């Protein structure tokens, strides 16, 4: 067997072929590299000399990643230019489940959009009706609006009121839930926001799936660093059902 259980985890080289900036702290990178990944799965990106971090592909052919500047790693990423080469391994983890979902609501907070944009497209291709709630701090952090509008009804909130509804996506979601019924709510964003969305889903008795983020080291289920209770985010997740999350004490107390 040419690709053993181990070898398929080796880095492939990925050259940057395009970089777009959105405001001061979001960049979208396109790589000369393609892979097969289900919406919700993640890859590990390696910057030699800096480290390795998980990211959700926002496109797979060619590979595209949306990156928000946060710590040292993403700061270094922001220095990358077209022609620079990074290492990619993956995909890893379990993606979203979307079979049999006819009415879906996606809720993205900030850069959580990266995990959901492909899901919206996939759901729509499968014939589902998709509402997309998207909340950011300010207007220049909004990405993929055109892509989303093609496949979903989009509801945007900004905390400073510079675009869409002033406030948070939780308020927008509450309004939708007051009048609409969904088969499933999909969510990715800061954990306190996801905790609130989970509470709403419970209140309305709607199925839900959440994409979680943890600092990953091995991504192959051996080191244990990404554990959430007795679940491994890299193997059992990063997508978890609301039902599973509700039973994990460590999710509720995070941050």
């Amino acid at each position, binding site marked *: 067997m040419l690709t053993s259980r*181990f070898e398929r985890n080796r880095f492939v080289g990925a050259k940057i072929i395009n970089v777009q900036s959105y405001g001061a702290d979001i960049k979208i990178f396109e790589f000369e590299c393609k892979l097969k990944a289900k919406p919700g799965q993640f890859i590990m990106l390696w910057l030699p000399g800096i*480290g390795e971090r998980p990211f959700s592909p926002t496109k797979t052919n060619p590979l595209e990643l949306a990156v928000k500047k946060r710590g040292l790693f993403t700061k270094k990423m922001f220095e990358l230019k077209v022609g620079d080469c990074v290492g990619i391994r993956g995909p890893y983890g379990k993606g979203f489940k979307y079979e049999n979902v006819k009415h879906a609501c996606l809720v993205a907070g900030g850069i959580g959009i990266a995990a959901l944009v492909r899901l919206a497209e996939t759901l729509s291709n499968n014939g589902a009706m998709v509402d997309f709630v998207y909340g950011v701090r300010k207007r220049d952090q909004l990405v993929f609006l055109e892509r989303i509008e093609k496949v979903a009804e989009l509801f945007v909130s900004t905390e400073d009121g510079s675009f869409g509804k002033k406030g948070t996506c939780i308020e927008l979601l509450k309004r939708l839930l007051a009048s609409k019924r969904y088969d499933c709510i999909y969510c990715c964003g800061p954990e306190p926001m996801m905790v609130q969305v989970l509470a709403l889903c419970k209140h309305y008795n709607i199925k839900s799936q959440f994409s979680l983020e943890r600092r990953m080291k091995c991504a192959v*289920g051996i080191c244990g660093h990404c*554990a959430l209770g007795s679940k491994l985010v890299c193997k059992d997740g990063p997508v978890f059902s609301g039902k599973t999350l509700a039973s994990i004490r460590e999710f509720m107390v995070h941050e």
Partner: protein
Amino acid sequence: MDLQASICGIKLKNPLVLASGVLGLNKNNLLIAQRGGAGALTIKSITLEKRSGHDTPNVAFFEAGVLNAFGYCNMGLSAALEEFADLSCFSVPIFGSCTASNARDFAKLVSAFDKLDFAAIELPVSCPHTPSYGLLAGQSNVEKVRAIIKACRKETKKPIFLKINAGLPNFVEIALAAEKAGADAITCSNTLGPGMVIDINTAKPVLSFKVGGVSGPAIRPMVVRAIYELYEHLKIPIIGLGGVSQGEHVIEMLMAGASAVGIATGILQRGPCVFRKCCEELSRWMKEHGYGSIEELIGFAHQ
């Protein structure tokens, strides 16, 4: 099939042990391996102080296994004493693991671990990729190992396992010295090497620490040979590990002379259920070949 095994008087429902360093950071981690069917669980090695370890990438892959260089990333002794104070959620024995740069610090750790409900305490002196620890602290030296075991022996009556490195030319001497100084079992082996994997696209070593310990299928023949030799020389039992992921590998280790068999990298290959799967394969093979107990297999290759 009854797969009962025992090591230093500790009864195991099966001979498979979760090796130190994988899914052993805390109790929640260990519960995953317990659910997977392990007969005993070893915690990730604890050092006196908390360590954040080496930067990522901590793992590199090649066709026959894994290199890792986590650099003893762990919560440190005081947090560990809290985390592992109550082990009542476990139905299998838990082995403590701790490591240090010198005999005095080893003894401090063992003295603290003695007060917990660990069934045994494992002391790795064999990590090939952490400065000031294991091989990089010169713990391949027989005198150093003797001093470590002597110092630790004073601090506990619990069984002490010395974890050695099968890649050393003097591994038998080390094991014999440990046995004489009061060690109760030898765990063989830690990761071998260190080795290196270079990414040819970027022309850079993959691991941030550049080198890492080699584990998985590639090292199994070396480890089997080491266990075979240790069995000829030692009176104390051996815990064999290195590249085990199938029932047949477990049988091979037992036949070489191991009384129990550890798994680390096998979890990557088959998930945390690797323990249950190995047990099933082991049972089936024993039945088909007319073996009635694990005991009968131990050292069978020496006849």
